[in-house]
């Protein structure tokens, strides 16, 4: 009898132990996973190192996670190079704009089974299901899990507005916050003698997105970018008309008229943010995450404020961003996919997602995190909450098309061509014609090489949709 009891106890103990280490190191093997952060900053590094240490201590002592980082402006190149040399980290941040090229090359793993088996969707806000559905619709599988939800806005120097216009910056909304008013504000805030410029103008990498967003909002038919999508031979990129020439001239005048320093021809994300935080520029159009950088700068609370994205001619607000920022993906090159998934899902457990979103100024995706008053209507993010749930907010892909080639055109060759226009080496007409030729050719080539995608061509090009509806609103209490 004693033997039987001992045997039962031993089996029970072994089973318990096995259950405890059901993921990694079932054999007791100690492994180290690597995580690559593509938008590093001190607070993020601290967060990740802390949360990974807690994971090892609380969840799985056999798994340690090494935090690695690469600056955002170099991230795409670095990650692609790592992938091509079979050297991807096990877990990584992945911009939603990269999914097409990454899944085409089999660099990131499908998360379908993990999501289905874990039931993790039930722990997320309703928006997450919409994001998952959209990925399945666009890419056939779920590849990424967003870290949080974001929206864009215009950061302004509240003190400059008060000094120059004699009004509180919030009064600009009451006056009618349109793109025309925003451009005018940039001129009004510019005062080179005081070392002040109206706008953190993006002339470097990513500048094509910004001008497309502006034209998208200001065209007589806002949002629509392509015509004849049912016939690839006649596929027509629309942003190459006289109206577009006029619009682009208006927008680029911000640079030509001196509303930005001459060096801004080279500015990308880092320079734009640094120069707003450093007190050189009066406005900055970017995502919510910049709040963290501003809070870490010398700007005091009364010196800055946030305004919504200006509205289009028809009153709608168009967003060119994907709604989620630095999403998580699991490398297809790792031999520890299960372990990587376990770590990934831990990032949404307890207050982990809320803690992260506070650092990054994002809306959390874990249901539990939404209980946190920080993200509620009385919290510091109330303005963003109002915007992200606004029925006037529309989501439209800016320029990242279905083809990886389009990403390349936008990020690199397009930037150099647009810089020539800024430096008046080329005309606006020449640039729009060049861009039209390249983006149309790349898109047609994509459909020639991927004829199966033609079946869903309307979905690919018909992406203008109400933001809140597409996200099922952000259910923050």
């Amino acid at each position, binding site marked *: 009898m004693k033997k039987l009891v001992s045997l039962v106890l031993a089996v029970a103990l072994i089973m318990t132990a096995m259950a405890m280490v059901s993921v990694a190191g079932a054999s007791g093997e100690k492994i180290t996973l690597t995580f690559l952060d593509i938008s590093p900053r001190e607070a993020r590094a601290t967060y990740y190192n802390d949360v990974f240490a807690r994971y090892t201590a609380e969840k799985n002592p056999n798994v340690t996670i090494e935090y690695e980082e690469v600056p955002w402006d170099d991230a795409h*190149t670095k990650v*692609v*190079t790592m*992938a*091509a040399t079979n050297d991807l980290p096990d877990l990584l941040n992945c911009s939603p704009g990269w999914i097409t*090229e990454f899944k*085409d*090359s*089999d660099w990131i793993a499908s998360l379908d089974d993990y999501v289905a088996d874990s039931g993790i969707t039930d722990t997320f806000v309703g928006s997450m299901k919409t994001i998952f559905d959209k990925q399945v619709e666009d890419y056939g599988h779920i590849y990424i899990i967003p870290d949080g939800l974001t929206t864009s806005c215009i950061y302004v120097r509240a003190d400059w507005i008060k000094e120059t216009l004699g009004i509180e910056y919030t009064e600009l909304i009451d006056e009618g916050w349109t793109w025309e008013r925003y451009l005018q504000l940039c001129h009004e805030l510019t005062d080179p003698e005081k*070392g002040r410029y109206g706008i953190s103008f993006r*002339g*470097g990498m990513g500048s094509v997105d910004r001008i497309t967003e502006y034209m998208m909002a200001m065209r007589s038919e806002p949002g629509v970018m392509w015509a004849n999508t049912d016939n690839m031979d006649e596929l027509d990129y629309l942003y190459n008309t006289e109206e577009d020439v006029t619009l682009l001239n208006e927008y680029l005048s911000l640079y030509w008229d001196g509303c930005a*320093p*001459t*060096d*801004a*021809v*080279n500015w990308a994300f880092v320079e734009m943010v640094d*120069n707003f935080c450093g007190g*050189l520029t009066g406005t900055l159009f970017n995502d919510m995450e910049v709040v963290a950088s501003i809070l870490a700068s010398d700007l005091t609370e009364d010196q800055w404020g946030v305004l919504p994205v200006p509205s289009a001619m028809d009153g709608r607000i168009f967003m060119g961003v994907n709604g989620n920022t630095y999403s998580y993906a699991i490398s297809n090159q790792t031999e520890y996919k299960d372990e990587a998934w376990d770590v990934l899902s831990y990032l949404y457990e307890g207050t982990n997602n809320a803690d992260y979103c506070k650092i990054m100024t994002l809306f959390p995706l874990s249901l539990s995190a939404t209980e946190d008053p920080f993200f509620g209507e009385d919290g510091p993010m109330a303005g963003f909450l109002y915007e992200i749930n606004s029925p006037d907010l529309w989501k439209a892909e800016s320029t990242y098309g279905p083809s*990886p080639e389009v*990403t*390349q055109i936008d*990020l*690199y*060759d397009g930037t*150099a*061509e647009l*810089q*020539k226009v*800024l*430096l008046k*080496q080329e005309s606006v007409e020449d640039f729009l014609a060049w861009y039209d030729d390249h983006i149309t050719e790349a898109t047609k080539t994509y459909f020639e*090489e991927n004829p199966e995608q033609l079946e869903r061509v309307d979905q690919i090009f018909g992406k203008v949709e109400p933001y809140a509806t597409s996200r099922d609103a952000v259910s923050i209490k």
Partner: protein
Amino acid sequence: MNSTIKLRRRRKILKAIEPYLFCLPLIFCLFGLFAYPMIRAVIISFQRYKLTELKKVRFIGFDNYINSLRDKNLGMITWNSIKYVVIVVGLQFVLGFGLALALRRPFRFRNVYQAVAFIPYALSGFVCGLMFRWSFNGEYGVVNDLLMKLHITSSKIAFLGTPGLSIIPVYVAAIWLGYQFFAIMLLAALQSIPQEVYESAELDGCGWWRRLFSIIIPYIRPTLLTILMLRVVWTFNSYELIYVITEGGPASSSETLTSYLFTRAYSNLDFGAASALGLMFAVVLLICAGIYMKLTKYNQAGDF
């Protein structure tokens, strides 16, 4: 008897192949580090080889070469490269030679001065690039501040945002970072000139210029020609300062052939086009080196 013959024969064979056996590790290394990448580059240059589309790699004949030669920026970038090499190597040489001549004779604290003068050579190109990028910043840079305080300019100059000017910080950084190489090498060569030669020249009434052109330069000619050629090749192949300071911008105006090649490879991720460009540059460099060696009668210059 037979076994003795066999042993002798074996020793003979072993002796004959011995040098080759010793060379084997080196040959393997050379093949792995030089020949294989070279062969691979040749193959890739005939392929559509984009890092983002590795599943679609295919042979496309001479398309990469043709597209590279048709590139509308190629003329400007080639001219930039020539200017970059001539200005940077020229000024590095003048400054380095001057420093070597100054340090040739012993004086008090010469070692300290020598150490200080050679410090930049120990810096990495990346650190140096960041330093000069900030120094030439249009709004906060120390260079603008100095120029305005010295009343050389009345307003700030956007060095990094102006085509034609954006390459200046790169020139300055490259010269500052590299003239010590000339100084170190030429100082060693100068110190090998026997003191008696100088003394005889002085007794014969030779002036400074006469000594420079009739004694010093002929004596150090082999070193001079070699380091000039090395430096030209290194400068032509360097891109890190351009990458850090201007990223080739604005509008590709500060690109050189090598930085442009790097951009094609690591920004556009088009390794096919980058390989084609790289091979064309290599051929041009080889031709230039051949011409240089011919013109300078390199083979008659003596030992290095």
